[in-house]
């Protein structure tokens, strides 16, 4: 258990800037996710917290105690890696007991036994203790690696993409298990991932990282519903959010939305929303990108009032539902459909984006401006308890 504070962390590897002035604070017992694309600097942050990497600048402190000069072994952190790093010649029991037997801890065998069995029970692997790592499946190996971190009851858990090696099905079930165990971990945890589902599911809060910088920190709902810019919006959600470039024209107090669709230009009245209209007036907005999630794009296969005609580019299943991609000239729109439809590729489809659910981004800077139902969304996001 520890509060972690990272202030103005910077790190360069040769000419490459890995971290650029990164600051954040993690509460006691919080499950904090570092999320971003490959090469964003997530693992470097983790290594700085662990003490494996020395930052060029900045301070890492646990419970207000500066840790920069403390050896990794004395920080009382436990790390779980993507490649499980088990001792191949030791049984699962010995692997889990190895840290406790080291010079630093030197626990007696009775204590070790109790701790290993407690961790094994939690990880549901009591019957694996006598096996060698070579006799385990990948999912079981990762369980052992986590169990080994668990037995030390560390102040801080650091997990670096622990599920990335597993195939899709196993990853999903392990994630659910991890989520279930979360409240029993009893430690602050930093979890690195590039999978938004893991980030959303596990994180009490999520920090989005790109090119060594923190882009946004917030709860899953805050980031999903109010992404700070288009980059964050496209990261969160699969299939990706749709972005439609549009112009806003004002007539007295009514606003019109003008956007290209196929080979023509469509103009519609903007749905009313006080917050949105206020913002438009305040900033004198005229060019925006409209972000609409795929589940908020409606479709029909016959001509329908208020729907625009487009061509079907593809239709494919993503598991329990399917995605239709429609060609709308300069851009494509993704939408959610049920499995098993008879869809003719290159056939006609009629589309109705639900602008009442959209997010407005600045056309130039691509930053978040405002969204529909902002108040309601904020209320929803705040119902999530923060530990």
């Amino acid at each position: 258990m520890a509060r972690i504070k990272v202030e103005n962390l910077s790190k360069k590897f040769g000419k490459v800037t890995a971290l650029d002035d990164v600051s954040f604070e993690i509460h006691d017992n919080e499950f904090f996710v570092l999320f971003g694309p490959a090469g964003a600097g997530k693992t470097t942050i983790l290594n700085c917290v662990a003490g494996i990497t020395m930052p060029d600048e900045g301070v890492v402190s646990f419970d207000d105690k500066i840790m920069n000069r403390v050896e990794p072994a004395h920080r009382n952190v436990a790390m779980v890696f993507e490649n499980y790093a088990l001792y191949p010649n030791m049984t699962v029991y010995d692997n889990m007991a190895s840290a406790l037997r080291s010079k630093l801890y030197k626990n007696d065998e009775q204590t070790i036994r109790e701790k290993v069995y407690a961790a094994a029970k939690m990880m549901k692997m009591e019957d694996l203790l006598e096996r060698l790592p070579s006799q385990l499946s990948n999912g079981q190996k990762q369980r052992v690696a986590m169990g080994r971190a668990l037995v030390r009851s560390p102040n801080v858990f650091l997990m670096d993409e622990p599920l990335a090696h597993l195939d899709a099905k196993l990853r999903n079930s392990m994630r659910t298990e991890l989520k279930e165990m979360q409240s029993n971990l009893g430690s602050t945890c930093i979890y690195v991932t590039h999978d938004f589902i893991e980030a959303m599911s596990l994180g009490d809060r999520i920090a989005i990282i790109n090119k060594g910088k923190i882009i946004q920190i917030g709860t899953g709902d805050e980031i999903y519903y109010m992404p700070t810019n288009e980059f964050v919006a496209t990261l969160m959600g699969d299939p990706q959010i749709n972005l439609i470039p549009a112009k806003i024209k004002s007539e007295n107090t009514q606003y019109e939305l003008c956007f290209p669709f196929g080979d023509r230009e469509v103009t519609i009245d903007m749905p009313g929303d006080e917050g949105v209209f206020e913002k438009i007036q305040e900033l004198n907005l005229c060019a925006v990108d409209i972000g609409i999630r795929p589940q908020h794009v409606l479709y029909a296969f016959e001509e329908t009032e208020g729907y625009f005609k487009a061509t079907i580019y593809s239709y494919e299943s993503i598991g329990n539902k399917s995605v239709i991609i429609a060609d709308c000239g300069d851009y494509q729109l993704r939408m959610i459909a049920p499995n098993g439809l008879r869809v003719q590729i290159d056939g006609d489809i009629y589309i109705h984006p639900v602008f009442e659910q959209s997010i407005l981004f600045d056309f130039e800077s691509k930053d978040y401006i405002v969204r529909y139902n902002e108040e309601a969304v904020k209320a929803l996001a705040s119902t999530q308890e923060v530990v």
Partner: protein
Amino acid sequence: MAGLTLENVYKRYDNNGKKKKVKNDYAVNDLCLKCEQGEFVALLGPSGCGKTTTLRMIAGLEEITQGNIYIGDVLANNLHPKDRKIGLAFEDYAMYPPLDVYGNVAFNLRARGVAPDEIERRVREIAPLMQIEDLLDKMPVKLSGGQKQRVNIARAIIREPELLLMDEPLSHLDGKARQAMRIEIKRLINKIKCTTVYVTHDQLEAMSLADRIAIINFGVLQQFGTPAEVYDDPVNEFVASFIGEPPMNITETKIIKKNDIFFFSFEGSNLEIEVPKRYYSVVHDGFRCKVGVRPMDVLIGDENSAGTPEEIAVFENLGDERRIGIHVGNMILMLITEDEKRYKSGDVVRLRVRGEKTHLFDIESGERIREKE
């Protein structure tokens, strides 16, 4: 273009005298498949199930132990691979590194002595289909994984094959590239309408690409049907659990009778779910079987609805959807909802199950138990 027929095909590998005592099982066991002309068929199964062996027998790279393979109306058993008029695309791109993309794509035609201007015409025709026009003068080392696979597929289809065979062509690519490439392949096959056999272990790929899916396990064909058929009407427990993500909830159940109404009951749980009426002809009090239902077909009723109150073990908010896990005995029953309500673990809910979407399976064999007509 031609159809493809496999008649009672068997394959047994020699064990080369290493372990003579060990009886070798069939890698492919009595496989019958009939692919129509222009059809896209996926061979789907876990690793080691015999799907690649099947593909290699169709290609002529592997001998057939027993049975017949017809390409079109021609018996292909003893045909040389080069005479089978097939195009192949494997997981590994296996390109000629000293040749540029044009040279790689044209290689086959050159080797067969096709006239240079004819080659030129065909390469120019194929390149836009695979979107590799701008890559033609590049060397393979300069290409990304996705681009290499495009070139690889272009090379397979330039021969104008009667049959296109692909073995996990996307498994080398990362998530985003794979999804994009999947769409490209689907559009390509839709355009050239070539009979295609596609090997994969990824049920998503099979579901989104194929007209029909052949699901194989331990060398034995389990089910051959359209994506909708294998998803909604699986023949056994294996198919039911292999197709769909998150997988179908399948658990053992004991049927109990209360006031002439049958209920599913579960060991170690007080959950009781009403048995759909259509199963009344096959169940009786004390009947044991497995019951399966997809996570999308378990619903949360409101506070007043009937059913046993259950405690939520896991609540996952994934943005687009929310997943809820509930302990039933020692398994976790997963359900997916798009409802905006936020729960937390420990909350009590009442479950409702879409009765028409439940499947019963035999405990021993895993075969589907169907209601009697």
